[in-house]
């Protein structure tokens, strides 16, 4: 009889931490707060993720990257998306917020509290609530005179 080695949810989470947002390579899907649920049984590994925005076009890519990352466990993997709880920006971890700044994106905050990800100046202005991706707004920094993107608070 073949015994299946136990797989802990922590080891699954650790593997998921190697999957990054396809547009923001400095932030993992764990730090982005996308992981809602991990269930492991003898037959499969089931992961439920939360979409940041309903229409996010990166979802299918994230799903296939996550499925591939969990392939090494040698058990069928089922990655799905759920709206069981709404993803909100409070789900971002501190590492996730630091990762956003590293990518030149200000972490989510009310517009008056946004700081420039490049020079940390608070002297910034929102150009438009809508940016190049559904999850981001456009700002301008008067300190270093750079335009930058800020993650939308949601």
């Amino acid at each position, binding site marked *: 009889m073949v015994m299946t080695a136990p797989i802990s949810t922590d080891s699954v989470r650790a593997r998921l931490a190697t999957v990054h947002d396809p547009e923001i390579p400095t932030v993992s899907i764990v730090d982005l707060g996308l992981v809602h649920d991990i269930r492991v049984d003898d037959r499969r590994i089931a992961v439920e993720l939360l*979409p940041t*925005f*309903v*229409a*996010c*076009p990166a979802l299918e890519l994230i799903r296939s990257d996550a499925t591939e990352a969990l392939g090494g466990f040698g058990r069928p993997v089922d990655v799905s998306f*759920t*709206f*069981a*709880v*709404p*993803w*909100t920006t409070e789900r971002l971890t501190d590492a996730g917020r630091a990762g956003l700044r590293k990518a030149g994106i200000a972490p989510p905050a009310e517009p008056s509290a946004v700081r420039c990800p490049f020079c940390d100046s608070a002297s910034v202005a929102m*150009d*438009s*609530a*809508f*940016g*190049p991706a*559904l999850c981001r707004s*456009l700002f301008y920094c008067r300190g270093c005179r750079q335009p930058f993107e800020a993650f*939308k608070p*949601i």
Partner: protein
Amino acid sequence: MNDFVAAPQAIAMDFEGAGDGRERGLALLLLSMADDEFVIGFSDSEWTGIGPILEEDVAISSLAQDELGHAQALYTLLANVVDDGRDADAWAYDRPPEGYIHARLLDHPRGDWAATIVRRYLYDTADSARLEALVDSSHRPLAELVAKIRREERYHLMHVQTWIERLADAGGESRHRLLAALGSMGPDAGTVLAPLAGEAALVRHGIVTEPFAAMEARWRDGVGATFRRLGLPELPPTASADRTRTDHSDAFRALHAEFTIVRRSEVGATW
């Protein structure tokens, strides 16, 4: 079944598989909402690349993309209820024009920028009243999706509210075009919240937590206050209470020909 006599033949047949009055009412609600979001989303996406200024081009494209995502999620919920083998894409693309049940307001063509803003303002504010009545829906998957959608719609409302104020306060040609758009679309604005054929079952089963008439009254109060502040004429009552979601316009038939062209050109095409 009597609840659904007002639904066109094609729709009534679509729901043969959807069990009792509760499920048929739910299916009709989901289809009407999904079609609303799909039609306004696709229609507004026609501004991509030709928006009045770059920031607005990006903004309207984002709004359109959000709506298409909401439509996809709603068609998926519908597919789970009707459960006849059709997926979200099949619901979105494989019906004849007369099978769509979006509100008559969205049958109006894209028009000029003022018309697009007026259509979106009237739709977004009405949709917001509808979503409020679904926050505590007894159909859990719908309540969960609505919680998510409302967080995104907050941005839509802020944006379109700003535009209505800009067009109204600017005077001159801006205000003239705004008034013209309100004149042509105002009488159809109430169609978004016109009672659905399955309303009795929806209310009885707690799928909506108030009748459509209550949603409409709340929506008219809100819009009325904004219009008075901006010196705009009061929104007229719905022109015709019949066939508020059927008998579509030539403008919609042209849009339908456009959004189904890939699907019709190659059956089963995927991205």
